[in-house]
C-alpha cells in the first residue's frame, strides 16, 4: 500500500482520463444505513458473476433483467460525483454494491480516486460490498483508494456454495484472507438459509476458519428473507429468529468475534 491516491490518479491519468471511465449502474441511493459504517451513499453496479438462489436484487444478474421498466445507466464518474456532493454533508462515505461491484473495478477505482482527490469529498470513506469472487490483483489495485470491504461468504462448504451461487468459493475465501491481511476487511457476512447452510457442524468449521484469519473479526449474520428473492423449487426457508441467535452462539463458542445479527 505504498501508492497514494494522487499516485493512483496519476497512474490512471497516464492510462487515459480516469473520469471518462463509465460505470454500468443499476441504481443509486443517497442515504443508506445498512451498507457500512454510518450514513452512506450507495452505488449499485449492474451485473454479477454469481447467480444466487437467494439474491434480493436478481435484476442485476445478466439474463434476469426485467423486460420493462428497468433501466440501468452508463454513468460517468462526474455524473455520480454531482449526486454524491449533494449528499456529502449527511454521509460518512460511499459504498459500491451491486450486482457485483468488483466486476467494474476500474470504474470503482476511478470513482474512489476522484472522491479522494476532491477537497470537499476527501473526508468520505470508500467501501466495497462484494461477493468476494475477485482476483487478488483487483483488490491490490483498489486498495490505495479503498477504506474497507464487506464480503459475503455464502457458504464455507464449496459444494453447497456452488449450489447456492453457481460458482466455487475458493476466490471468496482467498479474498477474505487477503483483505484481512491488508487491514481492509470491515466485515464478513454470512447469509443463513434454513436447512441449507445453517447446521452446527458447518457453522463450527466456518468459525474455525474465520478465527484463523481474525479471531476478533466483525461478522454480520443475516437471516434470509424471501421478500424480493425469486421463488425456488423447493422454496427457500427463512430461519427463525431463534435459529439466528443459536448460530451466533455457535460462532461465539469458537472465537470472540464481534457479531451482529440482522
Amino acid at each position, binding site marked *: 500500500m505504498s501508492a497514494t491516491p494522487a499516485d493512483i490518479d496519476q497512474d490512471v491519468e497516464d492510462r487515459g482520463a480516469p473520469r471518462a471511465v463509465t460505470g454500468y449502474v443499476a441504481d443509486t441511493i*443517497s*442515504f*443508506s*444505513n*445498512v451498507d457500512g*459504517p*454510518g*450514513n*452512506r451513499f450507495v452505488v449499485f453496479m449492474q451485473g454479477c458473476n454469481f447467480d444466487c438462489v437467494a439474491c434480493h436484487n436478481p435484476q442485476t444478474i445478466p439474463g434476469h433483467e426485467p423486460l420493462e421498466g428497468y433501466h440501468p445507466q452508463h454513468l460517468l464518474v462526474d455524473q455520480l460525483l454531482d449526486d454524491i456532493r*449533494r*449528499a456529502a*454533508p*449527511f*454521509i*460518512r462515505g460511499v459504498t459500491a454494491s451491486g450486482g457485483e461491484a468488483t466486476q467494474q473495478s476500474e470504474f470503482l477505482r476511478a470513482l474512489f480516486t476522484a472522491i479522494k482527490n476532491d477537497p470537499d469529498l476527501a473526508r468520505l470513506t470508500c467501501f466495497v460490498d462484494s461477493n468476494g469472487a475477485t482476483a487478488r490483483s483487483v483488490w491490490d489495485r483498489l486498495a490505495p483508494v479503498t477504506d474497507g470491504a464487506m464480503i459475503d461468504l455464502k457458504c464455507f462448504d464449496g459444494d453447497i456454495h456452488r449450489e447456492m451461487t453457481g460458482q466455487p468459493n475458493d476466490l471468496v475465501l482467498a479474498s477474505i484472507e487477503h483483505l484481512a491481511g491488508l487491514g481492509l476487511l470491515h466485515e464478513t457476512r454470512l447469509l443463513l438459509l434454513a436447512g441449507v447452510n445453517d447446521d452446527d457442524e458447518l457453522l463450527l468449521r466456518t468459525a474455525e476458519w474465520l478465527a484463523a484469519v481474525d479471531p476478533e473479526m466483525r461478522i454480520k449474520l443475516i437471516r434470509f428473507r424471501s421478500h424480493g428473492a425469486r421463488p425456488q423449487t423447493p422454496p427457500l426457508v427463512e430461519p427463525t429468529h431463534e435459529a439466528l441467535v443459536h448460530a451466533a452462539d455457535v460462532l461465539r463458542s469458537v472465537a470472540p468475534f464481534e457479531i*451482529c445479527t*440482522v
Partner: protein
Amino acid sequence: MDIEELTERATELVRSGTLSYDQKLRRLATLATEVLAYPDISDACAAALDKRVVCDMFEGHAPFTPRYVLPDYELAVRQGLEHLEMPAPTTLDDALAFLQVMYTHVPSVTTYPVYLGDLDKVLAPFVDDDLSDDELDVKLRRFWVGIDRMLPDAFVHVDLGPHDSRITRSILRVERSLRQAVPNITLKVDPDVTPDDLIEDAVRTVFETGKPHFVNHPMMVGDHGERYAAVSCYNSLKIGGGAHTLVRLNLKEVALLHAGTADEFLADVLPHYVELTAELAEARVRSLVEQQRFFETHWLAAEGLIDLDRFSAMFGIFGLAECTNLLMAYDELDRDGEARYGHDADANALAVRIVERVAELVADRPMPYCEGGGGRSYLHSQSGIDLDAAVTAGTRIPVGDEPPLLDHIAACAPHHHLFASGVSDIFHVDETATRNPEALVDIVRGAFASGMRDFTFNLDDNEFVRITGYLVRKSDLEAIAADGAVRHASDHLAAGSENAFHLTQRAVKRVGCHERDPR
C-alpha cells in the same frame, strides 16, 4: 356564550367518563373565562377568527398567564424562592426537591410548566466527584418518575447540551430505562462543541423513547443569545422570558380566499391577513399585560426569575404546503399536481417566497411588550392541533407525501432560519437505523450544516408515537379508544388527532402539537 351553552358544556365536562379529576378541573377553569368579553378586536379580525383563518389556540377570552413561561432556574437555585419560602438548596437532594416544588407553581395555559430548565446546567453546582454515576442515576430516576406522575403532560420540557456532562448522560440513561412520555427533551447541538458520542447516545435514546428533539445551537444563539431553551412542543424562547401568546395564520385558508396570481397574493392578500393575525396577538398581549396585569402581580416577576423584557408574542403559520400548491395551480404551473411542495424546485422556491414575505411583514409590525423579540413577534412554524383537518402542520410536507430524506431536507431547510421560535420538522426513520445509530448522527450533523433549525426523529415500530409533535404511548391511545381514562393530559389531544388523521396508520407520523383543545 349564553348560560344555556355554559351549562351544557360544564355538565358534559363534569360527567365525562374519560377525563380525570384534574383534567376536569383545568377545563372548567378555561370554560369560565369564555364567559368573559373577548379582548377588543376589529370586526374584520373577529370574522377571520370566527372562520379560523386566524386562530388564538383556544387560550380563552381573558388571558391571565403567558402561554409559555421560562423561569430562570439557574438563578432560582442560587437565590432561593422568597414567595415559596424555599432557601437556596445546597445539596443535590435539596435541589431536586426545590425544583419539584417550584415546577408546580409555574403558570402556563395548560397549568403545567412547559419548561423545567436546562437541567445539566441547573444541577451542575450540586454534582461533584464524590457522587458516583450509579448514585446519580438513582436520584435522577426518582426525580424523573416524580415529574411524569406530578406533571402528566407531554409539553413539559427539559433542555440539555450543547456541552457533554455526567448529568446529561445520566438523564439519557434514566430516560431509556423508564421509557416515560414525560418530560419531553431537547438536546442542543453545537457542531464544534457537542461530541459525536453524545449525539449517538441521544440517538440511542430516540430508539427507546422518541426523544430528544435536536436543535441547532449556533442558530438559536444567533436569534436569542446563549440563554434560550426549546420548550413545550418545540418553541424556542428566551430563558427568564417566554411568549405571551401564540396566534396562528392558516395559509391554506388565506390562499382559498384569493383568486389571482401568486404575486398578487404576496402583494395584497397575505399582508391583510398577517395584519389581522398581528391585531389578534396585540389585543391578547395587551389584555394579559394591561388588564390582567400578570407581570405586576406574579411572584416570578417580582423575584426576577422572569422579566417582561425577555417576552414576546409568537406569530405562527401553518398550511404552507396547501397554500403553495394552490398558488402553483392559480399560476397554472402545478402540472396537474405534480409540481407541488416537497417535490418540485419551483414549488419549493415559491414556498420560501411565501415564508420570506410573512417574515418581512412580521418584522415590520411593531408589537407592544415584545422586547424579547426586539419589539416584534417571533415567527413560528406552528405544528397543528387536533382539530386541524385537511391542512398540513406548520411548514411541513403533508403526511405520507414526504420525498426521500435528502430531498425533504432540501425543501425545508431554506426557510428554517426565518423561524426564530422554532420549526420542528419530523424525520421518519425505519427500524434498520437502530443497528446503525452513527447513520443518524451523520444526518443530525448534515441537517444542521444545511441550515435546519430543529427537528425530531420518529422511529417506526416505536411504542412512542409522535402524534402531532408531542409524544404519547400507543398503549395509552388504545386505552382511550376503549373509552377509558388515561393519566396524561395530552393523551386526549392525541386521541383527537389520531381520529382526525389516522396518524398511526400512516407510513409517516407527523403533524403538530398544541396545548389545549377548545372543549
